[in-house]
C-alpha cells in the first residue's frame, strides 16, 4: 500500500521508559499502559522531546473510548509536555507504542478518531467532479492534481505505531497518506494481533 512502511524495530515499552526524560515516579504508572503515546526526539534540534499539536485531543478521545482494563498514557511528565505545530501538509497524529494484545481496541478507536476528525469533515464538503468534455463522463482525476493545487487535496495524515509482542519483538508501522487509507493501514496491524 502506498505510504505504508513496515520495518523491524528495537523500540519497546522498556526502551521508552528508560529514557532520561521519564521520571522514576512515572515509570511504574506508564508500565501499566497498553498504549503509549511517545514523543519525537531531536526534532528541529530541540533538546526536549515534543508531541504534535492535537495530542491532547487524541489522548482524551482514547481515554473516553477505551474499555475498562485498557490504559493509555503519554511518555512524558506533565511539566515537560510541549507540543510542536508544523502547519503544513500532513496532519501529524503522533507516535504510538502498543502491546499486541491492545491491537483490536487501538484499531477501533484510532479508526473512529480519524473518521470523526478528518474523513467526515472532508466528505461533508462540496465535491468537484471533473468531466471529459467529449464523453460528458467523470474523469478519474482529483481537482488538486489537475490544478496542481495541493491545498485542495483531501486530508492527509501521518503516524507511526510500534507493536510489541509478548516476547519483546517489535514492528514499526509508518503511514503517510490520505486519511481515507486508514482502514487498510489498520488492517495491516491486525496480522500482528495475538
Amino acid at each position, binding site marked *: 500500500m502506498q505510504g505504508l512502511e513496515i520495518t523491524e524495530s528495537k523500540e519497546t515499552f522498556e526502551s521508552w521508559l528508560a529514557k532520561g526524560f521519564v521520571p522514576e515516579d512515572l515509570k511504574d504508572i506508564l508500565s501499566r499502559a497498553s498504549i503509549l503515546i511517545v514523543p519525537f526526539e531531536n526534532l*528541529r534540534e*530541540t533538546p526536549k522531546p*515534543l508531541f504534535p*499539536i492535537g*495530542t*491532547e*485531543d487524541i*489522548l*482524551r478521545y482514547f481515554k473516553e473510548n477505551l474499555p475498562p482494563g485498557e490504559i493509555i498514557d*503519554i511518555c*512524558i511528565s*506533565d511539566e515537560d*509536555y*510541549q*507540543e*510542536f*505545530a*508544523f*502547519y*503544513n*501538509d500532513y496532519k501529524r497524529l503522533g507516535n504510538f507504542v502498543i502491546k499486541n494484545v491492545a491491537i483490536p481496541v487501538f484499531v477501533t478507536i484510532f479508526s473512529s478518531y480519524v473518521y470523526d476528525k478528518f474523513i467526515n*469533515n472532508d466528505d*461533508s*464538503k*462540496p465535491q*468537484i*467532479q*471533473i*468531466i*471529459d*468534455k467529449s464523453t460528458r463522463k467523470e*474523469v478519474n*482525476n482529483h*481537482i488538486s492534481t*489537475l*490544478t*496542481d*493545487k*495541493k*491545498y*485542495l*487535496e483531501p486530508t*492527509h495524515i501521518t503516524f507511526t505505531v510500534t507493536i510489541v509482542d509478548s516476547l519483546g519483538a517489535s514492528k514499526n508501522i509508518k503511514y503517510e497518506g490520505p486519511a481515507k487509507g486508514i482502514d487498510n493501514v489498520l488492517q495491516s496491524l491486525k496480522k500482528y494481533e495475538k
Partner: protein
Amino acid sequence: MKNEEILEKLNNIHVQEFSLDDFSIQLQQIKEGFVKEDKQGQAKQIWIYQTIIEIHSLYKKAFELLQRQLFYDAWCHLERIEIAFQGLKKHFSFNKSQFYLWQIEKNVLNLQILYPYKLFGSSEILKKKKKCSVCDKEISIRSSCGHIVGEIYNGEMCHRIVTEAEVLGLSLVQNPGNKYSVMFLNDPETGKQKDQYSYDLIDFLFELIESPYELWDLEVSQREISTSDFINIKRNDSCPCGSGQKFKKCCLNKVGEKYPHYEFILKKPPRKALLNKTIKIPTANSS
C-alpha cells in the same frame, strides 16, 4: 426575539437587506441572558446562529473585495469562512437549502480553485505553555480542565491560548494548515511587496456576476494541450500563457499535458454577453 423569528430572518438572509452586525448584536444580548440563567443548550443554539451570520458577513465582504480586485484580502476572508464552517459543522449539519450555507461553501471552494496561489509560508512553532479559553487554567496533559477544544461553553467555542511559544522555523509548503501566508515577491525597484499573480479567471467571473447571492457554479473539465491550440504562434513568439518565455521554451514543450478547463454556469443572463468566451490555462504549472 423568539426562536421562530430568528429562524425566519436567517432563512431570508440572502434575499432581505438588513444589517448582519445589528442582527448579531441582538443575538448576543439574547445569548448573554441564556448564559446568566445557565441555559447552555439555548446559548449554544444562539452561537450556531451567530456563526451562520458570521459566515454570511465574511462572504459578503469577500465578494465586495473581489469586486474591488483586492484579491489577497478576499482570499483571507475565504479562508476565514472555511475555518468558520469547520467550527460550525461540529454542531450543526445543514442541507443544501438551509440558510444558503451550502452555496457559500461551494462558492468558496470554486473561488479557491480559480485563485492562482500555490505556495505558502508555514510557521513551525514550539508551544511551551497554553491555557483554556473557558476557565483560564493552564493545560496539563494528564489532568485536563475538562473543557474540550471546539465545544461550546457559555455560548463560545473553546480553544487554547498559547501563553509561551518559540518559533522553530519557517517552511514553504503547498498545503498549509491555514492559507493566509501566500508567497509574494519583492519589487527590486521599490523594495516593496508586489502581487505577481494573474487573477484573470476571477476577473472574468466577476464581469458576469453582480451580487454575492447570485447563483453560479463552476464546471471543470480535463483537456489536453495540443498543437492546434497554437495555430498562429511562431516558435520564437512570446508564449501566450504569459510566462514571459519564448513559445518554444514554454508551452510548446507541454503539448500532451492535461490542463483544467473552466466554464461558469450562470442562472441568470450576465450583464455582458460574454458567455461564449472561455479562458484556457495552458498548463497547470504556468497558471
